[in-house]
């Protein structure tokens, strides 16, 4: 059969059977052909994606759609997963239309994760503007700073978690403004090499609003962190931040870290719960140091000092 097949001349029950024989990837591709094809796909085969991730790379981008399948076995139910990769290539749709169409046909209204991995095409910022709910944003090394800066401006308000390997801010004020974003989680990698572009003070962390702030390879010394704790004790203005974690390059000297804090050590299993139900619901630790502010606010300091992990954690109890 070399001439194009008139698919829609088939009776509806046969069309349903055709669509039931198609792989999810093919149903999605069919839906991308036209608005009518999309409408038809939705009538003939109901797809329910568990999540959709967007990956932006140098001049190309794709969506990864995750499906969960249930297999009823005689004595139990087996769940297994499959992923479909949908390229934005020769589909005749803008990036935002393409994302919207895939979300529509897979009945998945939001993106779970967005990965920015390189220099995108011009219309990507428009596409990002159309996104209204993202769980996780990953900004990988190598993204042009101008794009990262725009992407953060657009996506920070609609994102819960940000992991970034690039700090696109030119000055401290811009960085402080970004730290005030109401995220659930912000993790910045290679801080030490990224932050020297501008002056940075641990005081900036005091005003940070993510529930959990993690600076990997932080730019500050143990003495600086001690000063941060002293400032926290003096401070009476609270940000949203409940957990601050920083990896440092030097050995953590206990005396330097706790100097002047009147810290009380403890040895017991404790669980720290975040005030909001988020992807990482709790942290546990079995030893550390408690400090208390004049207004009664309590916090716990823990640290790990075994190479290669040299990390200091600061938990603020509500």
């Amino acid at each position, binding site marked *: *059969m070399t001439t*194009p097949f008139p*698919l829609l001349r*088939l009776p*509806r*029950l046969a069309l349903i059977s055709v*669509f039931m024989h198609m792989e999810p990837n*093919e149903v999605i591709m069919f839906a991308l052909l036209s608005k009518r094809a999309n409408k038809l796909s939705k009538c003939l085969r109901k797809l329910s994606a568990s999540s959709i991730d967007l990956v932006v790379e140098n001049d190309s981008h794709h969506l990864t759609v995750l499906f969960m399948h249930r297999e009823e076995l005689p004595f139990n139910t087996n769940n297994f997963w499959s992923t479909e990769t949908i390229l934005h290539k020769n589909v005749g749709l803008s990036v935002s239309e393409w994302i919207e169409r895939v979300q529509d046909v897979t009945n998945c209204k939001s993106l779970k994760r967005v990965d920015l991995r390189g220099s995108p095409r011009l219309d990507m910022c428009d596409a990002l503007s159309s996104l209204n709910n993202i769980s996780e944003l990953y900004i990988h090394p190598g993204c042009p700073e101008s794009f990262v800066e725009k992407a953060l401006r657009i996506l920070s308000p609609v994102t819960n978690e940000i992991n970034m390997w690039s700090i696109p801010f030119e000055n401290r004020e811009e960085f402080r403004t970004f730290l005030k974003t109401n995220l659930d989680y912000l993790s910045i990698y290679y801080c030490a090499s990224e932050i020297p572009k501008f002056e940075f003070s641990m005081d900036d962390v005091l005003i940070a609003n993510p529930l959990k702030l993690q600076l990997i390879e932080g730019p500050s010394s143990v003495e600086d962190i001690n000063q941060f704790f002293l400032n926290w004790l003096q401070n009476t203005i609270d940000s949203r931040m409940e957990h601050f974690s920083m990896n440092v390059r030097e050995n953590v000297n206990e005396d330097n870290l706790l100097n002047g804090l009147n810290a009380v050590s403890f040895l017991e299993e404790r669980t720290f719960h975040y005030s909001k139900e988020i992807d990482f619901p709790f942290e546990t630790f079995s030893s550390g140091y408690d400090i208390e502010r004049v207004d009664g606010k309590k916090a716990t300091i823990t640290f790990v000092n075994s190479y290669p992990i040299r990390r200091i954690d600061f938990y603020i109890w509500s």
Partner: protein
Amino acid sequence: MTSPASSSEVKYLIESSEGNTFDVSGAALRQSNTFNAMFLNIGADGPIPFTDYNEATLKKVFEYCEHSVNEENYSGPKHQDDLSKWDLNFFNEMDQKMFIDVINASNFLDIERLTSYCCERIARMLRGKNTQEMIKVITLPTAEELEAKQKVEEKKAAAAKKVAEKAAETAEKTETLEELPVQQLVQTTRNKLTRKYLSFSNE
């Protein structure tokens, strides 16, 4: 010769759109759920009129049914890779028009195995293709064609509704199915299927 089917020896006469008749074994016919719903228990008095389909199409469909008489009961779709050489030849020797006619007839006669294989064959045309490649393999109707098709379907639905109402009135008057003449029985079943199809389409 037509009579209630109890053995594979029984032959039924099938009437095509051209008015021609030909024999089909009871065993082959029983693969059609539509036939089973209409005639299995009561038999048919005279040729069974499948007059929406031409002789060539019906013969092709029942050729398949005759061949698969001895296969085990249909238990779900089978991949094309698992099809026998005979099955593959059966599909390969059809041109596109015949293929579509066979799907339509098989769909009406509700022959699950044949419909499923045909549909899987179409799905395979799209396997692994991107949008550009799909456009080369299938044709999608234009807005005008769709509008025209919708009008035809609306007319058909209205006519079917009218006939169904009339058939329902007749059915109320008739005490048993056995008393219905064959032509009317076909029409009643067709109406039932139409109603089923319409309710399905509206979901």
